[in-house]
């Protein structure tokens, strides 16, 4: 119950103001189609530079929580998921909105997000110290393999092609090695003066997440479709609360699935929402009504994607392995404030970590309150014309990356990485493993160097890195994550082939 002693920090005026601002801003950003939670958090990081670590993390945590929930607004009212995590919400939420139950769908979505989110944060509170204590046993070789595991898990699970996912991870690891080697005092891969200080995480994060989205908006050209919002007639909140209590099955399925998936590094909210939706449908006596506007579809999906938020930070805080791409950006936020996640994080920075976690607990409640009041308003902002959003995100990206070190070199790096990422994304590469490689690269590199020194003094690198129970388990996990991805790629390839074959035979018959 150590966390209770750090609640005071959350109620300090500046912290509270940041929590309010992060929650409302996150809800609006989340409701805006095309602005992902990961990008929203990345764009906020430069602002945390001017805050204390605790205050910075409170802002990022509030934005992370509320962007995921805010994405439900556009999913329900516009049938455009604000984030990939809200795909399942759009299935029933929009059908409800179309038949005049938009307010009911929004209320159920925020209430179930709140319940799932609070349980997820409680899991974070109680599981993290246990895992941190266990992680105390890790030496440099284990920590090296854990960092590699982080890259391979996200590289193989967050990509449609596992070869390209792992390649993205490799590119990120290489980018992280650019700059001065502090131990040897030598230059590595410095091709231009802008790279002398290496690639700073924040401009890289902004470029890799924001610029591809800006260019995606450009790609739509001038003929942007006009989005129509649906009118939202009023609905009694107490009826929604009663309905949520009566839908305990969907709520439990969503919360449990979201929490478990959040704990698995790299899987993320999109899968949590879809799996919970699917399981809730299977267990429902009214399964035929799913997809036609069944409230349980909204409850299961939203409770799952918010229940995932807290547990996704458990491996992040203890092992430096983020549970989702947005958690990977949060890792960048921790590192720039000099907080290195690991087994000793609760000993070295208890006031920062516990206040941050507590703020997420309060943030879940604020998210429900503000969400219920601002949902219809946020939907209007979500209708903001695409050209304004593209221009606005670009200007914010330029100012955000410049303000970190007041360096034009950072802005150049941001833009070059962003354009490069957009091109790579068009060919199936993804930003999340690249970012993780960039963030975990220096950590993996340091542990590798330390491990190599220890190995040289002992039995050599083979014995040090490849033997011992824990090393073998971690290597097995690295191989398993790659093998699983390879296997699922093969399966989806076979499915595509059989679908193509059926289509071809039907065409031939016709």
């Amino acid at each position, binding site marked *: 119950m150590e966390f209770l002693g750090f609640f005071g920090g959350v109620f300090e005026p500046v912290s509270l103001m940041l929590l309010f601002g992060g929650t409302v801003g996150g809800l609006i950003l989340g409701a805006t189609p095309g602005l992902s939670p990961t990008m929203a958090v990345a764009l906020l990081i430069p602002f945390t530079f001017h805050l204390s670590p605790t205050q910075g993390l409170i802002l990022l945590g509030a934005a992370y929580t509320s962007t995921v929930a805010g994405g439900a607004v556009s999913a329900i009212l516009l049938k455009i998921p604000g984030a990939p995590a809200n795909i399942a919400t759009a299935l029933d939420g929009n059908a409800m909105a179309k038949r005049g139950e938009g307010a009911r769908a929004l209320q159920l979505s925020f209430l179930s997000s709140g319940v799932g989110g609070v349980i997820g944060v409680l899991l974070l509170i109680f599981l993290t110290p246990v895992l941190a204590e266990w992680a105390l046993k890790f030496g440099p070789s284990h920590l090296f393999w854990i960092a590699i595991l982080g890259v391979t898990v996200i590289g193989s699970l967050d990509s449609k092609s596992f070869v390209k996912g792992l390649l993205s991870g490799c590119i990120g690891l290489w980018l992280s090695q650019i700059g001065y080697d502090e131990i040897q005092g030598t230059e590595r891969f410095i091709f231009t003066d802008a790279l002398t200080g290496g690639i700073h995480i924040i401009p890289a994060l902004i470029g890799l997440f924001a610029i591809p989205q800006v260019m995606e908006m450009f790609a739509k050209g001038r003929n942007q479709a006009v989005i129509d919002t649906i009118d939202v007639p009023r609905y009694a909140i107490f009826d929604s609360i009663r309905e949520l209590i009566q839908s305990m099955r969907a709520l439990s399925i969503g919360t449990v699935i979201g929490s478990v998936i959040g704990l698995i590094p790299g899987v993320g909210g999109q899968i949590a929402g879809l799996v919970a939706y699917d399981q809730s449908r299977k267990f429902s006596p009214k399964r035929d009504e799913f997809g036609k506007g069944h409230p349980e579809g909204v409850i299961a999906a939203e409770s799952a994607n918010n229940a995932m938020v807290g547990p996704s930070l458990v491996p992040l805080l203890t092992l430096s392995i983020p549970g989702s791409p947005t958690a990977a950006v949060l890792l960048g936020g921790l590192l720039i404030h000099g907080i290195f996640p690991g087994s000793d994080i609760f000993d070295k920075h208890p006031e920062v970590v516990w206040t941050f976690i507590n703020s997420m607990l309060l943030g879940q409640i604020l998210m429900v309150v503000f969400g219920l009041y601002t949902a219809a308003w946020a939907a209007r902002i979500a209708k903001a014309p695409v050209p304004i959003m*593209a*221009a606005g995100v670009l200007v914010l990206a330029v100012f955000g990356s410049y303000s970190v070190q007041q360096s034009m070199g950072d802005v150049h790096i941001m833009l070059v990485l962003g354009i490069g990422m957009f091109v790579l994304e068009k060919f199936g590469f993804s930003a999340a493993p690249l970012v993780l490689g960039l963030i975990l690269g220096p950590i993996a590199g340091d542990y590798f160097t330390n491990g190599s020194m220890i190995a040289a003094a002992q039995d050599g690198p083979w014995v040090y890195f490849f033997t011992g129970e824990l090393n073998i388990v971690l290597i097995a996990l690295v191989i398993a994550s790659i093998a699983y991805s390879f296997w699922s790629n093969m399966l989806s390839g076979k499915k595509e082939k059989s679908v193509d074959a059926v289509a071809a035979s039907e065409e031939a018959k016709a």
Partner: protein
Amino acid sequence: MNSARLQHIIPGLVVFGLAAIVTWLSFTQQPAESFLFPRVISIAFIGLATWNLIRAAAGLAKVGSGFDATMVRNIAPGLIVMLMTVFWAAKALGFYTASSLAFFAIYSIYDPVPLSSTKDWIKRLIITALFMGVIYGLFALLLQVQTPRGILL
């Protein structure tokens, strides 16, 4: 060879080329201790890049839609504005002036509303001024970020 396959081969070649350069540098630069970890990375990098290129050449790389002419045409004006703003105008004209011009240009280029209406041009100008006002307040006044000044602000 169809264009879809070629579209995957070209980035495959670029990534392979990058991996080859990284591998060559990692194994030839001194002191070797500085490049131990890059060497480990480069082995995985070149292996995966080769595999990716072989898959692309064999027509097995299907993930990713690539580019088409319309997309390139749509992106080109915005991309030019971005590049000019960041690599030239920000220093030559000043950070705020360049950003305001970029905002206004992108908004005008991609606005689906016809460009002939004076009312809409005024609307774009007002929105640009309001947005840049917020940015100025946030970065210059609140965060006190010193930005490069060119011939203007």
